[in-house]
């Protein structure tokens, strides 16, 4: 009965998002884009509101606004304005406008908490298909650009000298980030999708000597954390997103303990 129930759908969606978030999260960490990913995710709430207002799929609205926010932030940062200030301004204003817009919608009564922190009850078969489609697309893009992305991350100058355009690689990350955010809204929610990007990578870092291994282990740990977190959320009747993040955080703590005690 579990196997075609909502828990299975939620689990599949969670694992799908986590698999894509692991390798992408590596670049978010290596390039210090944590705030960037938060800004993108927070902005997606505005996309949710607009999708509801114009009666288009939530996924499409969130993806569109997340993409818009990511590009806006990239463009503004390039002009030399202090990057984390711009990110803060965009992140908070987009979130605020999104929340206000959702409350103004006259006809719809929606559970805002579900979009902020994830809602496993709301995951449909279509959602699962969208999440896995998005995850496969993200993983394919990252695999295709992997070496070029690594070089552009280590040194934009060397990348240029080797015929790799750092701007184009940044574009790949911007697009994949928006996809992961749009996929992650139903599972972990807009406020916590950043955790799925950051925590598995920092947990697994001490146990890896190659970037590929870190990407793979982060994906695996994220998937496991999502499954365990969802299950706990079902058993304890607490929101899905926070449960997943709690499980991942405990894993992070455990890894630090292992690092401390190992010879």
């Amino acid at each position, binding site marked *: 009965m579990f196997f075609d129930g909502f828990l299975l759908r939620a689990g599949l969606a969670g694992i799908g998002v986590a698999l894509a978030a692991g390798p992408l999260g590596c670049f978010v960490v290596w390039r210090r884009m944590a705030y960037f990913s938060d800004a993108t995710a927070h902005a997606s709430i505005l996309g949710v509101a607009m999708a509801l207002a114009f009666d288009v799929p939530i996924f499409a609205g969130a993806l569109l606004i997340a993409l818009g926010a990511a590009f806006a932030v990239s463009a503004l940062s390039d002009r030399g304005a202090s990057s984390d200030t711009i990110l803060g301004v965009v992140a908070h204003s987009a979130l605020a406008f999104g929340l206000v817009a959702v409350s103004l919608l006259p006809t719809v009564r929606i559970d805002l908490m579900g979009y902020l922190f994830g809602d496993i009850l709301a995951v449909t078969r279509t959602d699962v298909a969208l999440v896995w489609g998005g995850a496969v697309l993200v993983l394919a893009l990252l695999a295709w650009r992997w070496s070029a992305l690594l070089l552009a991350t280590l040194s934009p100058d060397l990348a*240029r000298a080797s015929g790799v355009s750092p701007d184009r690689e940044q574009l790949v990350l911007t697009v994949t980030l928006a996809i992961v955010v749009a996929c992650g809204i139903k599972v972990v929610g807009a406020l916590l999708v950043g955790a799925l990007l950051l925590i598995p990578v920092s947990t697994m870092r001490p146990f890896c000597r190659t970037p590929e291994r*870190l990407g793979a282990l982060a994906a695996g740990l994220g998937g496991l954390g999502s499954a365990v977190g969802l299950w706990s959320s079902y058993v304890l009747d607490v929101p899905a997103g926070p449960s997943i993040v709690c499980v991942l955080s405990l894993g992070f703590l455990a890894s630090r303990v292992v690092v401390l005690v190992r010879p």
Partner: protein
Amino acid sequence: MSRILLQADRLDMRHGATPVLSDVSLAIRSGEIVTIVGPNGSGKSTLLRALVGALPPAGGRIERAPGLRIGYVPQTLVVDPHLPMTVARFLNLPHRVDAARADAALTRAGMAPHAQSQLGTLSGGQRQRVLLARALLSDPEILILDEPTQGLDQPGSAAFYRQIEAIRGETGCAVLMVSHELHVVMSASDRVICLNGHVCCEGHPEQVASAPEYRALFGTGTGGALALYRHEHAHHHHDHDHEAAE
């Protein structure tokens, strides 16, 4: 006869609306070591980037010898501690290179024992040598280095420049580098170009160090650098009057 590898002709560069370089003309010939010196903001890095083709000129022309192989060494390599990467792997980005070739480049740069070391655990000097090895992979006709010894202490810088000189001796490649440590690079340079938005003066290192344009930029009382130079200079020529005048 040495041929011209790289040439700038009346080059103008802008950063937005601000002119950074104006009317810069220079030529680098095969096998020579040329050092560009200049104060902060004098456009040294901009000039290098324009020469390697990373920035488009606002005016003037840049000519490279057809098929010129450039080995570029950036200022520093900042490695996030969360990024696991061995030296050998770094040389294989973005495309796999022949293992023997990678070994040869590491040996030439003095980093052969560190092929399997993590980039993040290397010292500044070692990281600079890894960048040098990477630049040597393409068997360059010209090595271009942007303040390669930034953050190294003086013995470290001196050792690095000796390595550059040795590589020039072995491979015959030309070297173009930016530095603010004229006294350290002097012995290794055939020619020095003093830059401050335009070419102030150029020539043999000793000529430049005593040129009024250079002194106007770096001052006569700026301590270490020039004093060290004059000290050597005085001993060399037994010019005690000059020293006494200090």
